[in-house]
């Protein structure tokens, strides 16, 4: 059977050589190398569940009265788009499972991409010859965030509408061209005309997924051509050492795909996400502080909340409206720094100009690690500021007090974190200790007199 299939393919396509190369392709082993794989598998689940959803979703703002099986909203006036998602959620068999799994997969997708990016930055995997692949990856992160935002915008529930209102204001706020840009996208003044939802839909279900798929193919092709990086304990700058694709690695990776898919379906089936029937349909005069958007826009909300009410006006012309600072400039700086990072790190003498196939441990390059961690803490602080209203409900600290706290925190703490991280890395490197390896917790024993004794105090 095997012999006949291989022979048939080889005689027609010359497949034996590429097949041999594929089966023997070497994957170095490290748990952090799974993060990118998890992102890829989430994308696969997103495509599969997304196709299912397109069979019912209708991108239309035509008003109708809901007549589906969710009683509390029966008779409510809503857009056809919102009604179609209500139909998926309540009247299509397994529709809610697929919709919630799709939503969860998007959230996990972007978590995995961000963790993958952090790993790449901390280990120096972006260095020559892999800068192109790094830039492709950063582009995919940006597209994934945009794709997720468009996805929850399509529903036309209250959360969608509030998100689009903010997106409209941020688009309007771009100096000089913003107003016209927003009018082109929305086909006029917010909330736009009936052409808006079809535009968002074609972006969400076709253009951006195709762009991500194409970049993903390039990303993988480049990895295959250049081989995976690895840690020095495995191979060397010349020799990549690891598990061949077949049989060991393929079975493990298929296993990872199935587990990722399984966890996403468990989440989709058991953990409610984006209950649109609680938000209800959108109208420009409605809003709530109960509907929280997905985590990956939290950093933008935090930035919009933290920025002071600064508008630059020259001669009656508003050069910079205030949403620009948090909604456009802040993400622009974050992505600008990410794109500029490989040459910037060379300029700062964090990296040399040679080719590197071996990864650094984070401690091996204290200044780089400290800069990356400081940068991440900065972005994460702004992200946390997106939850100030949630903290407010659970604490006695005034909202204004929290905003001032986060403003100071975002400006000062990254520098502190830089010095602390640098020091920790230098200490770890000098002593070559491995505080996390082999630590199995502490076992204590209570003796008859009531005292406690640490049984594994010196065990490492």
């Amino acid at each position, binding site marked *: 059977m095997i012999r006949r299939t291989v022979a048939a393919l080889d005689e027609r396509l010359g497949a034996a050589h590429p097949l041999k190369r594929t089966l*023997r392709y070497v994957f170095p082993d490290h748990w952090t190398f799974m993060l990118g794989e998890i992102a890829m598998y989430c994308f696969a689940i997103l495509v599969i569940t997304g196709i299912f959803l397109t069979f019912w979703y209708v991108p239309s703002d035509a008003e109708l009265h809901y007549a589906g099986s969710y009683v509390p909203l029966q008779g409510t006036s809503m857009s056809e788009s919102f009604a179609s998602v209500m139909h998926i959620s309540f009247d299509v068999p*397994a529709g809610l499972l697929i919709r919630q799994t799709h939503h969860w997969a998007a959230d996990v997708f972007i978590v995995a991409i961000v963790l993958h990016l952090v790993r790449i930055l901390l280990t120096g995997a972006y260095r020559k010859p892999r800068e192109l692949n790094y830039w492709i990856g950063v582009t995919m992160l940006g597209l994934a965030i945009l794709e997720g935002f468009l996805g929850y915008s399509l529903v036309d529930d209250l959360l969608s509408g509030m998100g689009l209102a903010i997106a409209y*204001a941020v688009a309007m706020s771009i100096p000089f061209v913003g107003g016209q840009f927003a009018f*082109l996208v929305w086909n006029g003044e917010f909330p736009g005309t009936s052409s808006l939802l079809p535009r968002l839909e074609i972006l969400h279900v076709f253009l951006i997924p195709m762009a991500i798929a194409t970049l993903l193919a390039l990303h993988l092709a480049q990895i295959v051509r250049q081989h995976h990086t690895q840690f020095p304990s495995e191979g060397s700058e010349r020799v*990549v050492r690891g598990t061949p694709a077949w049989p060991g690695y393929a079975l493990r990776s298929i*296993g990872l795909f199935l587990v990722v898919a399984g966890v996403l379906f468990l989440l989709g*089936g058991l953990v409610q996400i984006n209950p649109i029937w609680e938000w209800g349909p959108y*109208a420009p005069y409605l809003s709530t502080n109960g509907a929280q958007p997905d985590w990956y826009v939290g950093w933008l909300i935090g930035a919009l909340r933290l920025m002071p009410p600064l508008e630059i006006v020259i001669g009656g012309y508003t050069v910079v*409206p205030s949403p620009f600072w948090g909604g456009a400039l802040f993400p622009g700086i974050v992505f600008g720094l990410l794109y500029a990072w490989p040459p910037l790190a060379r300029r700062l003498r964090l990296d040399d100009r040679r080719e590197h196939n*071996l990864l650094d441990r984070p401690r091996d390059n204290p200044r780089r690690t400290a800069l990356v961690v400081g940068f991440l803490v900065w972005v994460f602080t702004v992200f946390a500021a997106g939850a100030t209203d949630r903290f407010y409900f659970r604490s006695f600290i005034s909202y204004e007090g929290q905003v001032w706290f986060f403003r100071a925190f975002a400006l000062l703490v990254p520098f502190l974190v830089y010095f602390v991280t640098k020091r920790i890395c230098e200490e770890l490197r000098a002593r070559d200790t491995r505080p996390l390896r082999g630590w199995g917790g502490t076992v204590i024993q209570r003796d008859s007199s009531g005292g406690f004794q640490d049984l594994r105090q010196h065990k490492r």
Partner: protein
Amino acid sequence: MTPGGFFARLVTALGGVSGLRRRRRGRQAELHQLFHPVDRKVDAVRESEEASRGYGATRREEPVPPPEIDETSDPHAELVVALLLIAAAIAFAGFVVFYVVSEDTQLLGLCLGLGLVLAGVASALAGKRVVIQEKTTDEYKDYGDREERREVENHLVEGKVGVTRRKLLFSSLAAVGAALGAAAVMPIASLGPRVGEKVYETPWSAGKKVVDETGEAITLDTLSPGEFITAFPAGASKEDIGSALVLVRLEAGELELPADRAGSAPGGYVAYSKICTHAGCAVSLFRYPTFDETQPGPALVCPCHYSTFNPADGGKVLFGPAGRPLPQLPLRAGADGGLEAAGGFYEPIGPSYGGIREAPGEQPL
């Protein structure tokens, strides 16, 4: 033939073919050092690097560790994998059954998710414990071949060999490129109208009746001091961002309106555009402390980014990121006792953009 035996022989054979040779230990650290020193003189580095590589000379000498192969399959693991696969099959079958009989989201998700996780664990376990375990090696390729690069350059340059009016042709080409580019982007302009065609106009003008969400007229008795309501112009679309008002009634003594707006608040009623001047959300929170003096006076708050406006003082920004006050609509009591607009908004409504402050303000009577 056991799978282990077959694959082991296959792998050993292939391993021999791909030229995997001697064991090497303890040189990683050394090599790591070798490729690490920082040197900014790029050219010098490249030269020495290429020399040190010698394109193959030193490379072939580098010892490569032989493949490590463990052919033994763990019989316990085989059993566990089989059990996991059977459990996964039962879970998937459960999905089919529940799909037919109950369509319950939780049960469907549980069956499908559990089946996938079980099958995944089985596959990963098989990859780790059942099939042959091996570590093999491959070489990182060196890219950058000077000879070939030069050939590519020569082929590219061939394109202009023998062409005499190079400059003329290149300028014409640039002209056609620019014109084609402009023609290609022009249709983008069809996507929407010019900015400013709508943003200045609102449905409000002097005499327009103020009604609530159901279309009922709002009179001076509708609200008590400290209450607020969302209001609209009679007969206009509620979806228009120029329509929605947040109507607040304050005690007459609480008002601190600017002198030129003194007559805009009959009975303590003040009206503001409901669209936040920061990011366009609906300003739907009203802070009106009625007991303890823990909050500093009444405020209208947007739930998106918590821009806070003072309804007593013409919508002035108290806190938060909004760069302009909430636009106020002057009110008056109509002949029938119903509230109506005394004119258009004092300021342009909606989020800011370049021309927002140049908007012709409709002055009230």
